[in-house]
């Protein structure tokens, strides 16, 4: 069983599904409404919704006739938390990069006069 974040990313790694989420960010919608902007069949949209629902990114009303889709924010929050870890990872690396660049420049200046050949 894959971890939740992998499931979330797998669900997000499709442009149609991301477009569906963007639409749902503006409010709930029916399958028909969601299908409108796309040149794909209703069953294809339903398959995408199933993936999103399986990943916990949306939920759907229980009434059989009228099953509006809604966005579920919790999983996106997990993605954001995860990204902020990465942000720290790289930002701290780049701090070290800047410090190391100073060292490299210093070393260059000490070792040999700057002379560039093309």
């Amino acid at each position, binding site marked *: 069983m894959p971890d939740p974040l992998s499931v979330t990313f797998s669900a997000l790694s499709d442009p149609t599904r991301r477009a569906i989420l963007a639409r749902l960010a503006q409010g709930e919608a029916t399958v028909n409404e969601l299908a409108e902007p796309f040149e794909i069949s209703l069953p294809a949209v339903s398959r995408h919704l199933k993936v999103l629902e399986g990943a916990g990114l949306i939920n759907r009303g229980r009434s059989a006739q009228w099953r509006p889709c809604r966005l579920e924010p919790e999983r996106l929050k997990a993605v*954001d938390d995860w990204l902020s870890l990465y942000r720290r990872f790289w930002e701290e690396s780049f701090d070290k990069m*800047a410090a190391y660049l100073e060292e490299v420049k210093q070393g260059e200046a000490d070792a040999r006069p700057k002379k560039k050949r093309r």
Partner: protein
Amino acid sequence: MRAQRKSVADSELLIVRTFKAPPSVVFALWSSAEHFKRWMGPKDFTCPEATIDFRVGGRYRAMIKSAEHGENWFSGVYREIVPGKRLVFTFAWENEGPSAGVEMVVTITFEERDGKTIQTFHQAPFRSVERRDSHVGGWTEAFDKQIAYAENIAKEQAA
């Protein structure tokens, strides 16, 4: 909240840094394993291992370690190399954990300004850059609004 929404708007991780060195030098810090090992990793980490096969389709693999977090391997494949200008590679952690198996695409551009380099770093959890670029807007907006929503719910629950 402002800060968080900002980070979310940049949701695919965008970090812009200016370095006091020309692009050729900054670029070399990515392309040479010797250089790479000297700076890679957050502040409490060292990077004792790195191999870099610097060509399109070539692989890199490296390990960072800290007393607290042990050894962490990551690796990827170079997709685009334009010396001193642009670098694209995949990135994935090899260890177990929440990020295992999620392949990311890193895109870095280097721009010279007054002898300095503006390095624009971008990382996204998608397999294909093309796909990502075609729908950045929708993805970002969805995040932007949803996180604000999530925060409100969290606040309500805390209250």
